[in-house]
């Protein structure tokens, strides 16, 4: 534990600055808020308005005709649950069904409704966490801390599974930092601007 802690402390300042979060929400207001929450915690943010857009951004929509998607690096996905078209749950499933890199991305589901069966199915499907809206600064801080440290703060069988995934994630994070620089700014800027409309 001490060793991984030291490694993280060495990386911490630069890592957080390059921690790229993809946020998905169909609400204008919520997109604006989540974007600000994440930027305030020094994350790089891309905001999209639907699950479909999110998959397009990740290059998972089966339509990646041109680019070999090495450019876009996402460290965490935060998605609203209730969205028209593809729900956050469906998006979660699609991501977790992917092979390799994409499946390892932590996905956090947000919802204004505290429905136990909903929470359970998301966690079972591999969601990192289920957040109740409205999302607060402390939620986001806790999340980014949790993922960067690879710690499972909450106790439970499911959590231990996630802990091992987070550990893998952390080691891949330290090696993938250099590729963070390559992540194209223009798509995120465009997406952020779109979200402000």
């Amino acid at each position: 534990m001490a060793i991984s802690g030291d490694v993280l402390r060495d990386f911490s300042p630069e890592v957080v600055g390059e921690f790229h979060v993809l946020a998905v929400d169909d609400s204008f207001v919520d997109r604006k808020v989540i974007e600000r929450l994440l930027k305030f915690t020094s994350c790089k943010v891309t905001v999209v308005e639907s699950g479909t857009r999110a998959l397009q951004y990740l290059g998972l929509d089966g339509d990646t005709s041109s680019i070999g998607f090495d450019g876009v690096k996402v460290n965490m996905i935060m998605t609203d649950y209730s969205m028209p078209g593809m729900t956050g749950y469906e998006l979660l499933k699609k991501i977790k069904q992917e092979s390799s890199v994409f499946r390892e991305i932590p996905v956090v589901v947000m919802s204004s409704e505290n429905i136990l069966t909903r929470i359970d199915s998301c966690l079972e499907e591999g969601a990192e966490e289920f957040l109740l809206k409205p999302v607060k600064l402390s939620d986001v801080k806790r999340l980014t801390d949790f993922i960067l440290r690879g710690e499972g703060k909450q106790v439970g069988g499911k959590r231990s599974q996630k802990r091992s995934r987070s550990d893998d994630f952390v080691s891949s994070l330290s090696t993938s930092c250099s590729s963070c620089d390559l992540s194209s700014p223009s798509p995120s800027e465009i997406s952020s601007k779109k979200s402000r409309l």
Partner: protein
Amino acid sequence: MDHLQRKLRDLESTMIQQGILDDQFSQLQKLQDDSSPDFVYEVITLFFADSDKLLNNMSHALGQKDVNFKQIDAYAHQQKGSSASVGAAKVTNICAAFRSFCEAKNLEGCRRCLQQLRQEYDIMKNNLLLLFKLQQDIKTFNRSIPTRE
């Protein structure tokens, strides 16, 4: 200037005391800084635009011959969500009641709720517009005395 600041503070605390705004609004204020100096104003402006549209949609839907309660519930859900995100406590609570009436397909209940919703929304909107005006007045005052801190 102190007088303006005091007025601003009083307005904020009154809105919170009366349950018009809750802690989530303070959360938004915490997110405002030099890198995003107009954040609260921007979110609330978005919220007003969103809400105006939703309220009109709800009115229109309730005026139909065959009322689509499911659709109205969807609007109320959206309104509830964005209201909660900006800390509009009273409006959020009315939306919750509204959804219950939608579920029960209670047309009269829905209509009364919408009326209440509009009233509370207007009160909140007017107060927030006054709040922004006070903030702007303070900024303007500060700019007019460049030699002071």
